[in-house]
């Protein structure tokens, strides 16, 4: 049993670690190798958007002799392990061996797959540090990491000194001696950070948020170009994962980047040089339309189990042919999408778009970012209020669908200029808008799903599926219909909250001014 460790990074490659440690500790302590050095193959895993890292967790697959082991460790001392046999990455948490580790990961990763974030070979040597009675008072682990990427240089050797219980004072003395050695630095970064740093990266780098730091006084065109470039980065970051179909969120993030780009081109058209927005809007519409069929099917399939579980008069198993049909269609649509993302048209679009954005020269005259943000947000907000206010009990679904799009435009506008606003005011405004968006989203998704069920039922009938399947689909459609009606009935309340005097005042603050 031992207590907290001292960690060091050793940067001097001339003198081997055991020699340095021996020289530093003699004659009060001796250094005894505890076992032969072992080499481990280490693969750090996380979701593409670093959900584990953000939760303070590190997941590692360690392979040496014998079966590979998955180790989940947390900054708060949490540690769960599981043996994995032949698991190939990427994999969803459901694909991991059942047990506490899978249970812990399922909720965190949800629809995102675990994929390798970094790989390295690790040569681990353990030493006993003994007092003059030859009693072990501390353990020293030396870890030499060799990143898998050939271009990467090895990070500094990592030393971890752990006191044996009851010998913390001696271990502290040893730590002091080690810290005094040239090239020895206290506090080695976690191994994942060290390996990623060798190739100029860091954990948690990817986010699908529009995290662009703008200033109120910068030219509006420069601000918009920065936002659009950030969106292009996110779009491109998700292309490979969408083509490989690693998980459904790659397409989601790609699609959101396209939609945000289209919104920025629409709302900020006047800020860009003449004709630029008009030239690219049709191309991004093409890209957005390409993603729709697969994403609609993803939404349907992701909610399928919950929908099936809610059937009242049919057996969920009767829906299997329907599920298979959707899954098959998704495979076809996904292939079509992947082909388009590999096409010359797509490659040319992203390359030309990047080149157009990076070659923009700020105009001599024009609004600054704060004014442009105020105008864009104000206009988008007014549009939502006008269109929403025109919706009554008998309004057709198209009107709600249109309002949903306007809400998205307003939300994206708030995201683009987030760095110009006071976070508490913006968060509150977004919360109210989100409440309205969720309601409209559910309504729209239910509509799409009902249409899908009807269309598929006709196809399946022609294929001669059992009557039980069609009955179950009818049951499912009825439940989806109930959810749709519930969302429709909630609309007026949600809109009233959004359009309330207090909420309008918050938007007025956002539209009126920005932090300099």
């Amino acid at each position, binding site marked *: 049993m031992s207590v907290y460790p001292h960690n060091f990074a050793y940067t001097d490659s001339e003198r081997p670690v055991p020699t340095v440690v021996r020289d530093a500790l003699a004659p009060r302590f001796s250094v005894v190798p505890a076992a032969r050095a072992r080499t481990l193959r280490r693969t750090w895993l996380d979701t593409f958007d670093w959900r584990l890292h953000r939760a303070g967790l590190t997941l590692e697959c360690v392979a040496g002799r014998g079966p590979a082991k998955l180790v989940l460790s947390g900054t708060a001392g949490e540690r769960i392990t599981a043996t994995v046999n032949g698991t190939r990455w990427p994999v969803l948490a459901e694909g991991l061996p059942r047990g506490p580790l899978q249970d812990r990961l399922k909720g965190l990763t949800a629809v995102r797959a675990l994929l390798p974030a970094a790989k390295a070979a690790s040569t681990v040597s353990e030493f006993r540090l003994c007092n003059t*009675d*030859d009693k072990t008072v501390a353990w020293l682990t030396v870890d030499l990491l060799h990143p898998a990427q050939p271009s990467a240089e090895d990070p500094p050797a990592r030393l971890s000194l752990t006191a044996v219980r009851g*010998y913390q004072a001696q271990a502290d003395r040893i730590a002091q001696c080690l810290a005094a050695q040239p090239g020895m630095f206290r506090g080695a970064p976690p191994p994942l950070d060290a390996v990623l740093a060798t190739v100029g990266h860091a954990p948690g780098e990817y986010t699908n948020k529009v995290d662009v730091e703008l200033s109120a006084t910068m030219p509006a065109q420069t601000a918009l170009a920065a936002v659009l470039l950030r969106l292009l980065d996110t779009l491109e970051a998700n292309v490979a994962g969408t083509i490989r179909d690693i998980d459904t969120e790659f397409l989601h993030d790609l699609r959101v980047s396209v939609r945000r780009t289209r919104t920025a081109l629409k709302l900020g058209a006047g800020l860009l040089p003449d004709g630029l927005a008009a030239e690219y809007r049709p191309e991004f519409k093409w890209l957005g339309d390409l993603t729709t069929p697969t994403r609609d099917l993803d939404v349907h399939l992701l909610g399928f189990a919950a929908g099936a579980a809610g059937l009242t008069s049919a057996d969920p198993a009767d829906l299997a042919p329907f599920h298979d049909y959707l899954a098959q269609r998704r495979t076809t649509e996904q292939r079509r999408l992947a082909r388009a993302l590999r096409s010359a048209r797509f490659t040319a679009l992203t390359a030309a778009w990047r080149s157009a954005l990076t070659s923009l020269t700020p105009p001599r005259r024009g609004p600054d970012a704060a004014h442009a943000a105020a105008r864009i947000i104000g206009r988008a907000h007014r549009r939502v209020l006008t269109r929403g206010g025109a919706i009554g009990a008998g309004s057709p679904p198209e009107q709600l669908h249109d309002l949903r799009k306007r809400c998205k435009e307003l939300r994206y506008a708030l995201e683009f200029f987030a760095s110009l606003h006071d976070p508490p005011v913006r968060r509150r405004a977004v919360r109210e808008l989100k409440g309205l968006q969720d309601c409209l989203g559910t309504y729209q998704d239910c509509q799409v799903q009902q249409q899908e069920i009807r269309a598929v039922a006709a196809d399946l009938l022609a294929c001669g599926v059992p009557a039980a399947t069609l009955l179950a689909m009818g049951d499912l459609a009825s439940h989806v219909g109930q959810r749709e009606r519930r969302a429709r009935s909630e609309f007026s309340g949600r809109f009233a909250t959004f359009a309330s005097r207090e909420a309008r005042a918050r938007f007025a603050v956002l539209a009126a001014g920005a932090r300099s």
Partner: protein
Amino acid sequence: MKIIATYNIKGGVGKTAAAVNLSHLAASGGMRVLLADLDPQAATSFLFRVRPRVKGGGAALIRGSRDLDKAIKGTDFDGLDLLPADFTFRNLDLILDATKRPTQRLVRLLRPLKASYDVVFLDCPPGISLLSESVLYAADLVLAPIIPTTLSLRTLDQLTEFIGGLDGHRPAVLAFFSMIDRRKRLHKEIAERLPAERDDVAATAIPALSMIERMAVERSPVTAFAPRSAAARGYAGLWAEVRARLG
């Protein structure tokens, strides 16, 4: 948390060797083990290279002015910790006598360690005293090494009688033959006969082997420095029987 006491009224019968090797075997098997060296001679502490000293001495531990937890030292073996002896442990009887309900004192001191350990071995000094009463009150199992001689068997009877006469908690007793000299016919005869006749005598016997004496030179359990030796195999057999008794 199970508490096993290696105890005999008679001294020099292999209590410490049993406690050291069985605790090492238990820890090697994945158990979290604490070995408490209650004998002021501190042989167990010596074998694990731990200085026989407890800050504040036995009085601080028994009176509770020093946490037992803070006196514990890690050994060189994973999962095996040691409460070292202290020369003041020679006065444990007197210290206990000055406390309320002295026989319950030890079990109370050990109670907070319940979450930290699966098994606690108490290596006791010989004799019948207030400390031994306290140990017997705390223990789930008393592991009593006996030398196969008529006199030693008499002490086993004395021990079982003594335990039988205790009020309240009475630990299970498992005696085992220790320091058996296979060349002596009497040793062989008794070691074979008694386990068949009495269910409180283990079938495994620990022979008198120089390898066990070597522990003092190696300052390590024989099960660690000579795991394939006859001595280590003997202790492994005994540990299997003890585990079966503990359930």
